[in-house]
């Protein structure tokens, strides 16, 4: 098979610490936290009352969705996804025109965990009150898992595969790799890929009940997310969306698009919930295999990897993730690549994590810098046994970067790893 090279020609992002690519670029350089206290969580008796929610006002909303689309609209994830996706599409040089012809060369894989939980809640209250006929036309579209791809696909007029994937916290990373394979194989010229997540009590409640979110930082929200830190005590929930336009190199060159970076390859696998893997815990063998196979797929070598953008959520599993990286790469101590986690600034954006973090990873390659790990002054002792302290920079660092590996792992024992290269 004639494989096409795949490059990134557009990006968009809606993150807790910034909305829009330019703002996000500045925010991650500065190490700005987007984690804040939420009274509603406290009122609802959550243990963890902090979280990352993107700031979007009515005016901004109206720039992206029509008054008709906003009628009875209550699906934060779809809103975030539409903003990120439309931004990415325009950033890649395309015009959004509702009268355009169907574009059969362009498709989309845009993931989500669930869709429209607020809308779903409203619908259930009506239903239980014998008012099913009062639901109107908007419930299905906003609560179906593929709501985001249905909304965005229509706004952009995409005519290739238009779908939504879902694989817990590896959703965003998986979406990128699914789109990558479609462009690489020539089934599409370009794919808009990304993921989104709702915010708030109804999506985060189950995690609070599992006691996997931190409850030590309700007074100091911006210091609450501490990946790799000795004081890490659980993740901080986040939300938002990230989007990237993947395109064949030929197509990008032909239309003289500006190129952010290349997707060299990657791998998606599952640990099968065997060998230590469970519904919630990773099978380490599978994690290592995923990384090794991603490097193989990218036709590169472990020694070529300059930096890692980890999954690193700030739970007790962080040291295990580092150990898996050291084993997969056969590099440790001073030989280990630089590693960082965007979750220190924005929390764990769940289904949106992989795509938002990939946007940050690609910005690092494009602009040759490493964003800081904030809230990590005291590194976890088990991590220091594996890699040198200076591999976890706490300040923004300009750096020559050629290849960065990005990984995400999710409930269900699923893994994804992407190899990005400077173009």
């Amino acid at each position, binding site marked *: 098979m004639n494989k096409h090279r795949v490059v990134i020609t557009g990006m968009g992002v809606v993150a807790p610490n910034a909305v829009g690519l330019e703002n996000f670029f500045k925010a991650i350089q500065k190490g700005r936290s987007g984690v804040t206290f939420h009274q509603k969580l406290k009122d609802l008796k959550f243990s963890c009352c902090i979280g990352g929610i993107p700031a979007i006002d009515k005016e901004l909303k109206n720039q992206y969705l029509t008054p*008709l689309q906003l009628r*009875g609209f209550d699906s934060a994830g779809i809103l975030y996804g539409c903003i990120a996706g439309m931004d990415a599409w325009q950033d890649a040089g395309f015009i959004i025109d509702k009268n355009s012809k169907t574009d059969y060369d362009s498709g989309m894989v845009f993931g989500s965990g669930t869709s429209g939980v607020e809308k779903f809640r409203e619908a259930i209250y009506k239903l239980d009150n014998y008012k099913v006929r009062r639901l*109107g036309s908007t419930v299905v579209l906003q609560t179906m898992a593929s709501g985001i791809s249905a909304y965005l696909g229509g706004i952009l007029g995409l005519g290739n595969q238009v779908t939504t994937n879902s694989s817990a916290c590896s959703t965003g990373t998986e979406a990128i790799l699914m789109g990558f394979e479609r462009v690489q194989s020539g089934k599409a010229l370009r794919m808009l890929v990304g993921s989104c997540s709702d915010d708030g009590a109804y999506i985060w409640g189950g995690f609070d009940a599992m006691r996997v979110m931190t409850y030590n930082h309700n007074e100091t929200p911006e210091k609450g997310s501490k990946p790799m830190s000795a004081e890490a005590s659980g993740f901080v929930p986040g939300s938002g969306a990230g989007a990237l336009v993947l395109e064949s190199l030929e197509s990008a060159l032909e239309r003289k698009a500006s190129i952010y970076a290349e997707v060299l390859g990657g791998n998606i696998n599952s640990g099968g919930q065997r060998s230590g893997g469970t519904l919630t815990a990773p099978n380490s063998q599978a994690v290592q295999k995923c990384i090794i196979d991603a490097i193989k797929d990218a036709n590169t070598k472990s020694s070529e990897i300059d930096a890692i953008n980890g999954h690193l959520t700030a739970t007790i599993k962080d040291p295990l993730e580092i150990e898996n990286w050291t084993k997969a790469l056969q590099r440790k101590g001073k030989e280990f690549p630089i590693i960082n986690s965007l979750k220190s600034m924005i929390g764990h954006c769940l289904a949106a994590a992989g795509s938002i973090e990939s946007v940050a990873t690609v910005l690092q390659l494009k602009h040759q810098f490493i964003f800081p790990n904030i809230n990590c002054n005291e590194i976890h002792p088990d991590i220091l046994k594996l890699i040198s302290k200076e591999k976890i920079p706490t300040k923004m660092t300009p750096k020559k970067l050629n290849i960065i590996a990005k990984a995400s792992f999710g409930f269900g024992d699923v893994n994804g790893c992407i190899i990005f290269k400077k173009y």
Partner: protein
Amino acid sequence: MTRKELITSLKKIIKPYSQNQEAFKNLSEGTDFINDLKINSANLVDIILDVEDEFGIEIDNESMEKMLSVKSAINIIETKLAES
């Protein structure tokens, strides 16, 4: 409420759903929701809910199916108002 007043109220309700602004401006009793105003058929149920709220009436499934034009909508609203 006169027929003219009913049309004015109805016009306010269907404005956000109308995709053809020209046809909306020239709205008359003969205007068809889907063919003229290019309203997405899925939105017809939303219009009916808005009509119910505005006039304090309930529109049964059978009447719903007939509400495809300004004229039929006005007729149904008048009938339901007279019943209530």
